[in-house]
């Protein structure tokens, strides 16, 4: 093995990573607030909705927590808090330009393991409240999970085959002076994006929080519990966007600006795209999506992997 493609920084820099993740969360929530305000024709006095994250956070901090009868409070709250932790652990392996906090040789698998954690956490949030709607929401998420997880795993395999490494820094480095993986593996990139939206319980993958079951998994959350849960969702979306940069979007590659700026620019662009998409698509109902995942997405992404493998062998 040659020298590492990124330098590992002191663990204290993890705080900086958390701060960046936090900033992305606020940015994402602000854009979502603005889009919601525009969609609802909110009066201009409401500040165009940009301040939504601030008002919502204040509101939820002021609201009292509640509990339901016979709730499993520990598991319930573990679910919400775990989402934030998972998102932080995800970005730990994402190199910011040339620096990384955790240069794990199997970083891609690490990310994958973290996104599987979301299965457990969302279900626990749904379960712990001891409420029928919450529970239905939790199971809906697992149903979605069965549909999106395998395609997502095989989508992550494509760049790994091309880079011949599970190390995130190396995958990014493999795209230097060549076409970005996102461009010549469009199917894998698309399925990956779908997966990110899905594990963030976002937009078309939000039936687990659906209006038809009184916001499902979130039906009983209030106050700080809801705040943590919502922050967790945004953080997962941001972490997923950040991870796409080294995997599919060339990492820090870009003209003029230093690498880390490009990483941030690409992350923010993808994140804002996800935010923008939320209101624009109807829900993909889990019962229908499951078959789509297995019958269409999985074969498609396997073919993508095969194509990538053949190309790599052919290139020598």
């Amino acid at each position, binding site marked *: 093995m040659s020298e590492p493609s990124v330098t590992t920084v002191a663990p204290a820099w993890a705080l900086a990573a958390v701060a960046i993740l936090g900033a992305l969360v606020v940015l994402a929530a602000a854009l979502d607030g603005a889009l919601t305000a525009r969609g609802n024709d909110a009066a201009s006095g409401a500040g165009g909705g940009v301040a939504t994250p601030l008002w919502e956070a204040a509101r939820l901090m002021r609201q009292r927590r509640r509990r339901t009868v016979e709730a499993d409070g520990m598991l319930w709250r573990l679910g919400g808090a775990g989402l934030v932790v998972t998102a932080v652990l995800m970005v730990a392996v994402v190199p910011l330009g040339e620096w990384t906090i955790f240069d794990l040789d199997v970083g891609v698998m690490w990310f994958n393991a973290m996104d599987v954690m979301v299965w457990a956490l969302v279900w626990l949030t749904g379960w712990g409240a*001891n409420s029928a709607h919450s529970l239905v929401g939790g199971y*809906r998420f697992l149903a979605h999970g069965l549909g999106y997880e395998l395609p997502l795993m095989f989508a992550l395999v494509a760049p790994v085959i091309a880079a011949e490494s599970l190390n995130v820094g190396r995958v990014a480095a493999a795209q230097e002076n060549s076409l970005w993986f996102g461009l010549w593996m469009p199917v894998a990139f698309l399925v990956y994006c779908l997966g990110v939206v899905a594990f963030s319980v976002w937009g078309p993958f939000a039936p687990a929080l659906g209006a038809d079951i009184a916001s499902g998994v979130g039906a009983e959350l*209030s106050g700080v519990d809801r705040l943590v849960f919502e922050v967790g969702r945004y953080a997962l979306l941001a972490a997923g966007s950040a991870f796409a940069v080294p995997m599919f979007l060339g990492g820090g590659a870009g003209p003029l600006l230093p690498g880390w700026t490009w990483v941030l620019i690409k992350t923010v662009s993808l994140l804002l795209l996800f935010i923008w998409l939320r209101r624009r698509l109807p829900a993909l109902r889990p019962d229908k999506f499951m078959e789509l995942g297995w019958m269409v997405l999985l074969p498609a992404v396997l073919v993508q992997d095969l194509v990538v493998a053949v190309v790599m062998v052919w290139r020598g």
Partner: protein
Amino acid sequence: MDAFARSATRRAHVLLVEVPGQWRTRAAVERAVLTRGWSLAMSPADADVLAVCGRPRPQLEKATGLVWHQMSGPRVRVDVADDAPAAEALDQAQARLLGTEHHRHDSDSRPVAAHLLSANKGHDQESLNHGSMDHGDGDDGTMRHDGGDESGGEGMDHGSMGHESMDRGDEGDGTMRHDGGDEGGGEGMDHGSMGHESMDHGGHGGHGGHGGNGGNGGNGGNGGNGGMEMAPGGIALAEGGEDRDGLEMDVLYVRLGPVLPHWPAGLVLRCALQGDVITEAQAEILDAETQQRHAGPTAGPAAGLAAGPARILDNTVSLLALAGWEDAAAEARRVRDAVLEGGDRASCAVKLDRLRAKVARSRVLRWSLRGIRPLGHEELERHGLPPHLDGDTYDRLLGMLERAGDSNGKLASPLPLDKLPHLVTGLDLAAARLVIASLDVHELQPGHVHDETSGA
């Protein structure tokens, strides 16, 4: 601190309670909430403000009271009368939300969960004394497990609860693999209904928003009936039953409504759920006896010609929101409000055309709604349903948008309530909600309460 409280009320979430016939008031409040940059709450946990649109009659008032108990503080209830300006009511709500001292007092004086559970028990039995009473003797059916002192029978005094498992008594032991002694299966049913009764969403008993005490809520709830071991916290455990694949699966009794967003006003649907599939349902309109039909503003002078199209658009909003498409739902809401405000007809028509084109263009929506509960002509005729409900849910959505274009449209005739259970049985919750929204209910006609069991 003051600035904090002010920012906290900048974006309050409002849970709407609609009194049957008061959809215009609800639409006005909805509009006012969204224009001031507030948000519509989907559940009591999410809400700061409970906005009651119209004057609720006793049963709905009671249900509203229970929802009120589930809201965590700071909380405010505003009653918006027929023609009162909604914006003023919300201003008032915001002002009251700011009173921190008041809310502190409010949370100190909350009743504990146990009291709520016991207080609501008696009422439920009264109001539920219809339906399958004849199952009262089935108590031993559920008791084929090695429990000690069981008590049954008691729980059968109300509607659909329990009789499913009564019929198939051999399931009991399948669900009881813990080595507890004394169980009272039939008894449990009773508390189950109590737990969900009048909650806007079922599955749990009343909430102690103030923490603590959830654990022993069952004590009060149990009254003197015994068998409480099967109903921890006053909530019954699910009982087994055969699912549509012929496998044993738990049956959980859950009430949908009356306080539920995008749900016909005053409707309560009692569902037996296996997983999230409705295997049995029973529909009821709250305050059916005291309700004066064809009264209220729907028939008043303010109704005008726009009533029909606006009502249809209102239902379209619900259907699109339930399908998870927020942009389209918001647009439909804008068109509805334009029609309700009696705006220029031509511009309304243009907006409606745009909405219709948008909806028809969406392949994802079509993919998602196609094939949900198709209704043929014969079936509609047999059930006395209007012919425009022909087709599946997607067809019905397009039909609604088509009919909304008829600017002379009047409100549709009331839909017979007793047909609803038949239409949703066998569907999962999501599909059932979509189907009910797609029926374009303008008003429900209370009738004989009807039971529907899936053929399986």
